[in-house]
């Protein structure tokens, strides 16, 4: 993923999350939520299963977040300058 795509997609999903935060916390309490393309893709009690919901999309979105409904998703770009 290039930086321009990251910036665009993270902003789209961040804005979607801000609108949906209270609904997510209410409707998906105790579950892991998958958010991509500005929408909730689905939720599951298992983190890995929630990630698999993203993988099942066609096409698979370049950008997505999976997070526990009562936690804040990470939309930022971290640095890990050792790797690569």
């Amino acid at each position, binding site marked *: 993923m290039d930086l321009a795509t990251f910036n665009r997609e993270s902003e789209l999903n961040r804005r979607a999350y801000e609108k949906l935060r209270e609904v997510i916390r209410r409707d998906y309490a105790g579950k892991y939520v998958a958010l991509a393309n500005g929408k909730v893709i689905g939720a599951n009690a298992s983190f890995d299963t929630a*990630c698999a919901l993203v993988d099942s999309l066609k096409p698979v979105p370049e950008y997505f977040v999976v997070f526990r409904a009562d936690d804040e998703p990470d939309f930022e770009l971290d640095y*890990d300058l050792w790797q690569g």
Partner: protein
Amino acid sequence: MPRASWASNSRNEYWIDVRLGGKPRLVLVDTGLINRQGVVGFSIDATEYDRIKQAGGFRGFKTHRRLVANGQIVSTQSGSLDAQLISPQTRQPVGPLVHVYVYRGAPGVPDRVGVAFFHMLKGCKVVWDLDQRCWHIDCP
């Protein structure tokens, strides 16, 4: 104020002792490991991460995007557990017990500790003695 101290090795690396999820571990100080949310303090080898995950050692998970040294943006996951410094002098825990996320790192890359873990150590100070090449952490 108790002080835990680590000297650099012959390759100018600073490895410090921590307890991660109840298990002692040596981790490389890496100030280039930066999680902007301030919750991911470590990166550990993928095999070890998977072992902890399989054993139910993580309390929660989330996804992240990392900019790595070759300019790529890669996705990864992290799991949360408790972490605490271990004094190499006394072999006892020192400083606060903190709840922190750990990246699933790439296989073969050293286990590392980043900025966010140090920022969680309330009341503590890092003293980097450049003449003696020692990394000290003073804790209340």
